[in-house]
């Protein structure tokens, strides 16, 4: 098989076979196309309740984001402006990774504490906040896969090199004097003033 070509031959006795049950506990990821979504379901309504209890303290009751905790809504239509806002609704290309991320990483201080049902419900609520699910909707694997995110086609392949490989050595400015376009002293004094080694 092509992929295995040039692979080192296995060395006997190093690494232990892992059981399907052991894998199941750790294989918590959900792919963009929904591969990996578990059975179960949850409603926007259930999600709302959970969200208010466990999420709103950071993300705000409507996902608007408190202080500098991330907003989960907004930004649609902003991506090609000079104030782009990247959120679930405006930026994420696929819906299943919302489930993936909530289940693996949220609530921020107690991750991996949500049941699959709770994760479905919270995903449903976050999608609802983004007007991608009606208020009375229920979410399961099939439904989640079927949701088309607004920015689905927003990602393009890597496109570098995209800058010229020029290395002029002398009189490169052709007589133009140097003009400073921005001076950091407008914001900070030179030195280490931008940051701290003690919690602020």
């Amino acid at each position: 098989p092509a992929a295995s070509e040039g692979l080192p031959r296995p060395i006997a006795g190093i690494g232990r076979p892992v059981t399907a049950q052991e894998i199941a506990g750790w294989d918590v990821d959900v792919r963009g196309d929904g591969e990996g979504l578990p059975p179960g379901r949850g409603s926007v309504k259930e999600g709302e309740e959970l969200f208010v209890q466990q999420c709103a303290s950071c993300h705000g009751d409507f996902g608007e984001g408190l202080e500098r905790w991330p907003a989960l809504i907004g930004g649609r239509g902003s991506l090609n402006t000079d104030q782009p806002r990247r959120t679930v609704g405006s930026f994420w290309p696929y819906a299943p990774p919302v489930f993936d991320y909530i289940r693996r990483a949220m609530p921020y201080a107690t991750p991996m504490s949500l049941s699959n049902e709770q994760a479905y419900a919270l995903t449903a609520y976050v999608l609802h906040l983004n007007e991608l699910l009606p208020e009375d909707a229920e979410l399961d694997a099939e439904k989640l896969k079927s949701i088309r995110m607004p920015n689905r086609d927003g990602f393009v392949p890597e496109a570098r090199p995209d800058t010229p490989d020029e290395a002029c050595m002398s009189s490169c400015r052709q007589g133009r004097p140097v003009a400073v376009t921005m001076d950091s002293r407008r914001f900070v004094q030179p030195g280490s003033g931008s940051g701290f080694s003690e919690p602020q």
Partner: protein
Amino acid sequence: GTLGAGAATAAEGDPANLPPNTPEWAKALGPGVIEEAYGTRSRHETAVRRYVPWLTQDRQSSVSFTPLAEMHGIITASGLHFERHHGGVPDVVPADWRLMVHGLVERPLQFALEDIKRLPSVSRIHFIECPANGGMEWRGAQMSGVQFTHGMLSCSEWTGVPLKALLGQAGLKPNASWLLVEGGDASLMTRSIPLAKALDDVIVAYGQNGEAVRPQQGYPVRLVVPGWEGNVWIKWLRRIEVGDRPWYHREETRHYTDLMPDGRARKFTFVNEVNSVITAPCPEKPLRGKPGFVEISGLAWSGAGRVTRVDVSVDGGDNWRAAQLQEPVLGKALTRFRVPWEWREGQRAFLQSRAMDETGRVQPTFAALRKARGVESIYHKNAIHTWLLEPDGTVVNVQIDA
């Protein structure tokens, strides 16, 4: 010493310890061996990692910066290695650590730390750079020094097992083409990596500068992905799933994609392209006193391979001189460059460095970079950087019309 011949030193020192007097430390025994069975630096040294409070809400999902101005050579002192965590630093118990390899493999396996250490090993000196390094400067100069403009950058000797060897243990199914790599921290951080890179030079590393990988760098085991953005160098590695397509997880869509002016974002921009910065002089290392000899020194690097040349300008890019590169120049490693300079009385100067790599890539100007990408792509800012040297020796982060 100051810039003037025969001038008194800036720090005059305690005359009791200066010639002709015998310093106090030559007149009494100091502490003996193993006073520090595991040693640390002098109490007189003060270089530290720093963070920027306004960048993040808390310190758990945050970044701290390497004090590049204090570094010598190319190896980063492990205690000063920059940090980027998404859920803080886990205290992984090494006996409880496991790495699972599964998915499109012939033999799903798990490895304990001693299994990893039994496999054939490799050591390489490589830089790691967060692709957001300098991301605050896309719109203009606003940070106070090189620690913040370029300090999400470090270079260590990494030791571990080629990822290829681990995949050899598990065997690959014919349609294997992408890997999901997952950390074991509170964010269970994930990224997708193409198989070709995994089979090329990726290392599953347990060693950093001659000892165990530090907790902040992924203890006990992290991924080393030479030349590629730091985010894919998964720390506290716990799982590798082999698949047939990328996962499009949060950290490769919401983050670590490069938004272009047309509103579309480039994905899987893995390579950190050729880059450089002058670390002396710099805002943290101003020139004090009278003009005279100055060694301009800095760091260059490229995720595509070896740095082949670094040019330095003191006139804002009008004229350039090739700097000397410190041997050995290693692929995908920091490269120290140095060039002697004579700083004239009252001279205002615009210091710049411009690196080139073995693939022929040349570090672009800010103008060229913005022309290609606008100012909202956050990541992969590798523009030629400018320090303004004022006649009094102060060094200021500025941007100029190029």
